[in-house]
């Protein structure tokens, strides 16, 4: 019986009169969970609350058996939860290597972090760009660097917010490989819009709508679900055929 690694209950966030997030959710250790839903469903807000970037108005987040509600982001990160944000945000002023080093250091120290960073450069295929400022990277390379930064500290749970946004088909394939590899050692939650990508990786899918969990199941179940089709796949069918 798999252990739950993340338990979210009654988590609520309001923006003015708008309830952005109101949900209960449990993720088991080792899962690769996809989180989908139309724009404004509250997915990114949910991620920001989980990772400590935003405080909820009510509810609790339990991670690895500890109540982490309202913790600072760096404490959450040190407990083993990492995040790749929606907007590509690498540390532009630092070199590619330093980006990874900084993200590994809190876990493995200076020397160990250096070794892990070098290994991660190989994995994400940026070894030749190690000493370039991160700002020189292309959009796709920045996305991989971020995935690398989110995984180099050997987290137990990784949150990836739209890891393939703006990528070419080839780049998406490489990202899928990275993600599978990451999932061998970590639990992963992915937010995506790209249905082809979801089909490539998905085992269990959660659909969010207006801040709440609307449906949950395998990709087949979700695609058969008429309610989901109405709110998302129906209106958003062009997402699937565009590529």
């Amino acid at each position, binding site marked *: 019986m798999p252990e739950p690694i993340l338990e979210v209950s009654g988590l609520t966030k309001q923006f003015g009169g708008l309830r952005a997030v109101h949900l209960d959710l449990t993720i088991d250790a080792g899962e690769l969970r996809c989180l989908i839903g139309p724009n404004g469903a509250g997915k990114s807000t949910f991620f920001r609350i989980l990772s400590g970037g935003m405080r909820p108005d009510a509810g609790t987040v339990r991670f690895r058996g500890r109540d982490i509600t309202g913790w600072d982001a760096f404490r959450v*990160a040190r407990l083993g939860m990492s995040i790749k944000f929606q907007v590509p945000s690498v540390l532009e002023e630092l070199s590619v290597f330093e980006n990874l080093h900084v993200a590994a250091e809190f876990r493995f120290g200076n020397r160990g972090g250096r070794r892990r960073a070098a290994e991660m450069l190989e994995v994400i295929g940026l070894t030749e760009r190690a000493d370039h400022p991160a700002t020189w990277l292309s959009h796709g390379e920045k996305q991989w660097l971020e995935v690398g930064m989110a995984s180099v500290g050997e987290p137990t749970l990784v949150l990836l917010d739209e890891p393939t946004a703006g990528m070419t088909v080839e780049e998406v394939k490489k990202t899928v490989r990275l993600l599978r590899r990451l999932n061998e050692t970590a639990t992963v939650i992915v937010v995506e819009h790209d249905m082809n990508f979801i089909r490539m990786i998905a085992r269990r899918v959660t659909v969010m709508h207006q801040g709440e969990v609307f449906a949950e199941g395998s990709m087949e179940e979700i695609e058969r679900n008429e309610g989901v089709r109405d709110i998302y796949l129906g209106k958003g069918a062009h997402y699937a055929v565009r590529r």
Partner: protein
Amino acid sequence: MSLDTAVIMVLEILNSITILVLLALGLALIFGMMRIVNLAQGEFFTVGAFTVLASTRYAHLPLWLGMLLAPLVVAGLGIAIERAIIRRLYGRPLDVMLATWGVSLLLIGLITVTFGAVTQGIPFALGNFSVGRYQYPEYRIVMTTVAAGLMLSVYLLFRYTAFGRRARATIANPDMASAAGINTPRMFMLTFGLGAGLAGAAGAIMAPIVGVVPTMGVLYIARAFITVVVGGPIVLLGTLSSASALGLIEALISRFPLFTIATAGHCTPPPCEISIGGSAFFGQIALLIFAILLLRLLPQGISGFWRQRQ
């Protein structure tokens, strides 16, 4: 120009650059990197100078010990101010300006109440050395050495140490740095403390050559801001290069009269004219005019211009 005059001229230029580097280095971290418009920066300088005054005159410590103490005292003061006030105001630049202005007035008031409003001197033992026909103060060479040492240390600290890497990460993108496990509030606090400590060190080093008075910070804060702004986004190298450019102009105009203007009316002794250039007063004016011109031509500062050309 004879050789000894040329050597003295070079030393004068070096001295102008030294003073600008000393004034601007702490602010380069606090304003250049952290984007905090700290209007109390001048008072950090003042507190550094008064730490030297208090430790030599009242505690009878040797001068060098007072000078080592000053940056520590001011760094502690800076950390306290960051924790108590500035931390609550990140992302609200106008409120930070108002709050630090208040801190500035408070510090001036406290120092005046404690030490009095008079200008006091700090005696020191170094003399002059001769360059041909001229005498030049040895202490200025000490100042240049210390300024170069501080500049180099700060550069190495930020470039090559774990602290520097984390501080650069925090300043580049606080959310991202925090998500990467960096204790960002602590990095802000330490960087601010370092910037304050450097201003304290500058005040301590300059204390023996300037009058130590509670309002002295006001005299220097403008030049510090100008140097950092002209330096542009690559903070340390930019500050060094703008200090060099501005210091060069200041020293040259301070030394050489450019032209004279005839004045109206009678005067004794004749001829009735004002010399433009050739005094420290005109050196400062030239510095300001040059800074305005530079920013008109290079709105992103000197290092912003380098970056554009890349």
